[in-house]
């Protein structure tokens, strides 16, 4: 009798480069690229995984285009909302997404410019690659 072993390692990498103020994260998912891409770009799916439990994510608006905004809230069990404003700066379908965002009060309409913002701005360059494995 043979068993198919489910791969439990996901090659998680978490490296910090303090000098460059960068965190490098790598993770493998046991799913086809189309599904992974959908989970990162469809707000209904994003809401199911981006918030740390017991917080939930709730989307106000989502425009997944270059220059478009995803405005959503992290909602606590008590209903307290922490708004996040994320702007998509580059999209290459099935390959890469770049976004820049910040916590905000839910009413902002643009990102702060210049060097004087208070350090809450963050950038997420995401690259997706697919590896097909054979059994």
């Amino acid at each position, binding site marked *: 009798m043979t068993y198919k072993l489910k791969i439990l390692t996901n090659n998680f990498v*978490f490296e910090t480069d303090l*000098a460059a103020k960068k965190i490098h994260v790598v993770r493998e998912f046991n*799913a086809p690229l189309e599904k992974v891409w959908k*989970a990162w770009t469809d707000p209904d799916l994003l809401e199911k995984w981006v918030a*740390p439990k017991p917080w939930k994510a709730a989307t106000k608006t989502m425009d997944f285009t270059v220059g478009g905004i995803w405005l959503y809230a992290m909602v606590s069990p008590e209903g307290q909302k922490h708004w996040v404003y994320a702007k998509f700066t580059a999209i290459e379908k099935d390959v890469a997404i770049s976004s820049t965002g910040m916590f905000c009060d839910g009413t902002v309409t643009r990102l702060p410019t210049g060097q004087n913002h208070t350090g809450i701005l963050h950038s997420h360059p995401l690259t997706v690659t697919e590896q097909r494995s054979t059994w």
Partner: protein
Amino acid sequence: MRRDIYQAIADPTRRAILTLLTVGTMTPNAIAGHFGSSRQAVSKHIQILAECGAVDQTHSGREIYYQLNMEKMKEIDYWMAAFRKMWEDRFDQLDKVLNDL
């Protein structure tokens, strides 16, 4: 002013000094020799690093030597561990979403 380890690494010159000190102990003069800025400016950075607890000083004769305080630097690791955990948990949740798709 209250200092913490994050102020130590908030400045590029101070991060460079900390990198230098990973190799070994150094005198203020030796540290300053690595930078184009004035000795006073470098000295000020070293003073801030000491106030943050990032470096310790030892006296040997007339010289002062600075060394990294690794225990203090580890605070940053502990703090970053929370972010690592957050990403791990988040991706475990994404695993479930992908499974159900």
